[in-house]
């Protein structure tokens, strides 16, 4: 089996190796990839859309239809993961364990006992002893707001610097995942519940598709942002720039929520208990 795999892989590598001399050299400006549509994008993106970052202009405007379905793919991945893993009626433990945060004592509360839910002093845990990492919790609590702020900057400044909805959304999702890792999953649910994450991912796709439909209703083609000029009170070129921003916010929301939802389901195997 291993030898067969090695032979197949070597054969494939040999074929790729054999075909490579026909490819352009590295850094060749005459490479076919930069000859056909890409010069148009580079030369006209500023006058068409007033967006200096050509990547953002292509992503959300020239190839907006493609990006819309990429967002839909991410959304369906989040939904698929939910349907595969989520367990709603798992066997609930007869006794519940709570930790008294100040002393580190674990309380075992029998079935029917009074539960200290909502108390700041007690925290629900799943095994008899869960380490309490004060350094990790405090460090992440200090880091998370700045990571989130940076994510918002990356989304909002995507027109002028590397960034945009996908990158900012992933950074924002990473901030929430960092919180969920350093505390526990239940703490993360108090900040961003499962329902909120799913609604946000659907809302992100809805913002994207809704912007496209709005352009259709205003008499343009689907995702032709220049028709938004009347609503936004700007000229047609700036309307395309603003349309890109609206769409990028939708992408960022969807990507953030799907990343968080994937982590919620994968880290707890769909049970949504303490998690990792």
């Amino acid at each position, binding site marked *: 089996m*291993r030898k067969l*795999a*090695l032979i*197949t*892989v*070597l054969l*494939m*590598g040999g074929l*790729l*190796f054999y075909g*490579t*001399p026909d*490819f*352009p*050299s*590295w*850094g*060749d*400006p005459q*490479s*076919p*990839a*930069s000859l056909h549509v*890409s*010069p148009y*994008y*580079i*030369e006209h*993106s*500023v*006058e068409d859309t*007033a967006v*200096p*970052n*050509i*990547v953002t202009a*292509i*992503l959300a405007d020239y190839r907006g239809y*493609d990006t819309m379905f*990429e967002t839909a793919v*991410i959304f369906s*991945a*989040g939904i*698929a*993961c939910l349907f*595969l*893993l989520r367990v709603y009626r798992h066997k609930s433990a007869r006794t519940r364990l709570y930790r008294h945060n100040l002393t580190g004592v674990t309380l075992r509360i029998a079935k029917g006992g009074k539960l200290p839910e909502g108390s700041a002093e007690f925290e629900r845990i799943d095994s008899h002893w869960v380490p309490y990492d004060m350094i990790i919790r405090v460090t992440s609590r200090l880091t998370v707001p700045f990571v989130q702020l940076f994510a918002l900057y990356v989304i909002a400044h995507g027109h*002028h*610097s*590397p960034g*945009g909805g*996908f*990158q900012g*959304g*992933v950074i924002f999702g990473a901030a929430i995942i960092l919180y969920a890792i350093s505390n526990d999953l239940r703490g993360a649910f108090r900040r961003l519940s499962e329902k909120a994450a799913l609604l946000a991912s659907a809302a992100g796709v809805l913002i994207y598709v809704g912007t496209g439909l709005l352009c259709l209703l205003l008499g343009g083609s689907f995702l032709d942002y220049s028709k938004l000029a009347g609503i936004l009170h700007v000229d047609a070129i700036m309307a395309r720039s603003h349309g890109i921003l609206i769409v990028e916010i939708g992408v960022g929301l969807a*990507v953030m929520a*799907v*990343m968080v939802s*994937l982590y919620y389901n*994968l880290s707890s195997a769909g049970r949504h208990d303490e998690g990792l």
Partner: protein
Amino acid sequence: MESLLTNFLAKYNYWVYIGLVMIGMYAMIAKRNLVKKIIGMNIVQTAVILFYVSIGAKKGKAIPIIAHGHENTGHHAVQALDYISPLPHVLMLTAIVVSVATLGVALALAMKIYHHYGTLEENEIASRINES
């Protein structure tokens, strides 16, 4: 000999991506553990991303963000030769995030398989399917 070597070095990005594709494909075919197969799939995706981004490169040229100050926005003519090709970057930007999403679904499937069969080794799963 000299020209062969310069020709070889001029296309070094392709050698790297071919190597990565081979590593990833070998992991996908030869490894029995499903998580290792998923890692192999991710290595192949990375190789494809490297291939796409490297064919858009232009030696010594700027990243695809038009240089602009606060006053002179787009008043000078933009030459396509001054900026690297943005199109492969756009395609790969979405591919990276989609690859993370597919990785999540793949891991969810692997988790389901583990809960059902109690193992992630391919041959043990196959023998358990034959038993039942």
